[in-house]
């Protein structure tokens, strides 16, 4: 591993870990067991580089003139995705390489290889009526012949062409690390710009923001179902705080998931999508329940006379972390998915909003120690570490499906809360929303189908 993870190279370590996980210990297997691109990345990191340098010429358009700059625009989307991944140093805005012109390809890549590029990505977009297809071709610029180390064709309805650029980025990350990127995902959140708190959706990079509720009520706590088809959320649209489920991409009515007296709140889909953990106060005080979506049965998990709420599932579905004040102030507790074996996870402060990493190794939570900040802890209580230290409050983290990024809300800027992203170790914090009104309660979707 020393060859991969050079000392004092945090990103090398990061990539090394990604690769290690992705390759499942394949480092000791025959080289043929991993992709050619992964070999390229390992070799680059072995030289001490922190990131892989990749050049992305403007995508080439086939089937008509590129009068609107589509090839450049899409390549820029892919370039931003790969930069965001933190695995790549990207150079883009380079003239497109004509199709079927090996000399032009060689000329372009020769120049960039000389400038330090390790890889080159060519994209060819073909428009056929209402369908759009992109072919991505990945070249190893560290090899003399610029060998092709990966290629794939991806097709979508022409109206979703921007997703093609995201899917190309996710495929590039897959080729190099063994796990797809997270560019073809969405973020659900709450925005108050209309004067009421409404649910909104946007691409993970902030593009295409659109409101998906307009009931002029209070809508909070959206969470994605694992199949990315639906959102569970709490709304006052009928006066009292009931739990609903909506299908933002389908023409289906909103469903009531729970409409008991009291609060019906804090939903969390189980990893298999068959159940929703939630909070109900129908028995007198807020307790954690699990709703079986097929049968409609509610099973109560907690028994305490005060507050139990904010359940979050482990990726195996075998355990649930939640917030309880049974030890005094709010703390994170763990239990089996049937409610047994309750044990305390956090000790100091006022801790809420646990969110279990899709990789299982970390529970991120919001801790109040003066201001609110994000912390991480292992499910066994180990490796407690602070992820944010201001400015302002930093709360409500939601994991990207690869467990490498978090979206969260912060009021560090004037004007109230907006959404930000960061890497799971708290680095590379950057703004995501700047919309009018406050943006809060982010839920990062699983990868879209």
């Amino acid at each position, binding site marked *: 591993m020393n060859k991969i993870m050079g000392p004092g190279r945090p990103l090398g370590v990061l990539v090394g870990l990604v690769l290690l996980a992705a390759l499942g210990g394949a480092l000791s297997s025959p080289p043929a067991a991993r992709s050619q691109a992964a070999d390229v990345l390992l070799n680059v990191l072995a030289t001490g580089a922190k990131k892989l340098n990749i050049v992305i010429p403007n995508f080439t358009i086939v089937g008509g003139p590129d009068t609107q700059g589509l090839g450049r625009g899409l390549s820029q989307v892919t370039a931003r995705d790969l930069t965001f991944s933190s695995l790549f140093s990207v150079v883009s805005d380079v003239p497109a390489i004509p199709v079927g012109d090996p000399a032009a390809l060689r000329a372009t890549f020769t120049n960039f290889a000389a400038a330090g590029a390790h890889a080159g990505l060519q994209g060819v977009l073909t428009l056929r009526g209402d369908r759009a297809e992109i072919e991505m071709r990945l070249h190893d610029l560290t090899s003399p012949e610029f060998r092709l180390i990966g290629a794939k064709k991806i097709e979508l309805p022409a109206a979703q062409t921007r997703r093609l650029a995201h899917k190309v980025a996710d495929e590039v990350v897959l080729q190099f690390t063994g796990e797809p990127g997270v560019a073809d995902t969405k973020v659900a959140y709450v925005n108050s710009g209309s004067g009421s708190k409404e649910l909104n959706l946007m691409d993970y990079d902030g593009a295409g923001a659109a409101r998906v509720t307009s009931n002029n009520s209070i809508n909070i706590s959206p969470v994605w179902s694992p199949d990315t088809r639906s959102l569970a959320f709490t709304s006052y649209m009928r006066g009292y705080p009931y739990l609903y489920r909506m299908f933002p991409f389908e023409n289906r009515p909103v469903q009531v*998931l729970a409409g008991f007296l009291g609060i019906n709140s804090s939903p969390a889909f189980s990893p298999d999508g068959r159940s929703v953990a939630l909070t109900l106060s129908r028995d007198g005080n807020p307790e954690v329940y699990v709703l079986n979506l097929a049968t409609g049965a509610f099973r109560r998990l907690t028994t305490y006379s005060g507050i139990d709420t904010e359940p979050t599932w482990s990726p195996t579905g075998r355990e649930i972390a939640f917030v309880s004040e049974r030890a005094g102030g709010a703390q994170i507790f763990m239990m089996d998915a049937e409610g047994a074996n309750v044990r305390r996870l956090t000790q100091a402060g006022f801790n809420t909003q646990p969110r279990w990493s899709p990789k299982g190794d970390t529970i991120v939570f919001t801790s109040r120690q003066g201001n609110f900040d994000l912390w991480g802890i292992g499910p066994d209580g180990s490796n407690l570490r602070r992820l944010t230290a201001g400015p302002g409050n930093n709360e409500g983290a939601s994991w990207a499906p690869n467990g490498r990024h978090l979206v969260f809300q912060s009021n560090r800027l004037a004007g109230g809360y907006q959404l930000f992203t960061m890497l799971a170790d708290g680095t590379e914090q950057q703004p995501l929303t700047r919309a009018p009104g406050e943006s809060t309660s982010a839920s990062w979707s699983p990868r879209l189908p």
Partner: protein
Amino acid sequence: MAHRRGSALLVAPVLVLSLFLAGCPKRPATTAASAPPPTGAPPAPSAAAPATPAPAMTPSPAAPATGAPRPAPPAPSEFRETANLKDVFFDFDKYDIRPPDAKTLDTNAAWLKTNDNLVLIEGHCDERGTNEYNLALGERRAKATMNYLVGQGVQANRITIISYGKERPTCSEHSEACWAKNRRSHFLVKAR
């Protein structure tokens, strides 16, 4: 486009060289967030086209509306403000009734016993903390308030509680003075 590549490609790598050799900046200028959006980008995926949810609450086989409310209490919008019932207030992250607020509730209870209204108790929190935890905390405040009134002889079946968590503050400044005003139980009434 082939005829243009000669000059363009000669210039580009010179710019690129400094980027790659500059210690791999976190966000190269060419792809920073300030980069212009794709000029020819099509509108958002049609799959994302927002559809205003139909108001109908038709249950589906996938998720029967098993949680449908029992004999539903009147909608919150049917209750009216009254000057006869005073708010009570709470300490941060607490829902026990403080002695001065108990006196307020004694007065509220006396009025309710001579005025046969239905009453809605709203539980509220300050802006600090999560929506979800505050929803639970507001519920506990409303419940503690209800329990006190019931203890003073007000019939429980006249009382409905609702938690608004941190969602409906009366004071919007970010100060303890303001937060203290928001940590409250508020009363509304409706004629029988």
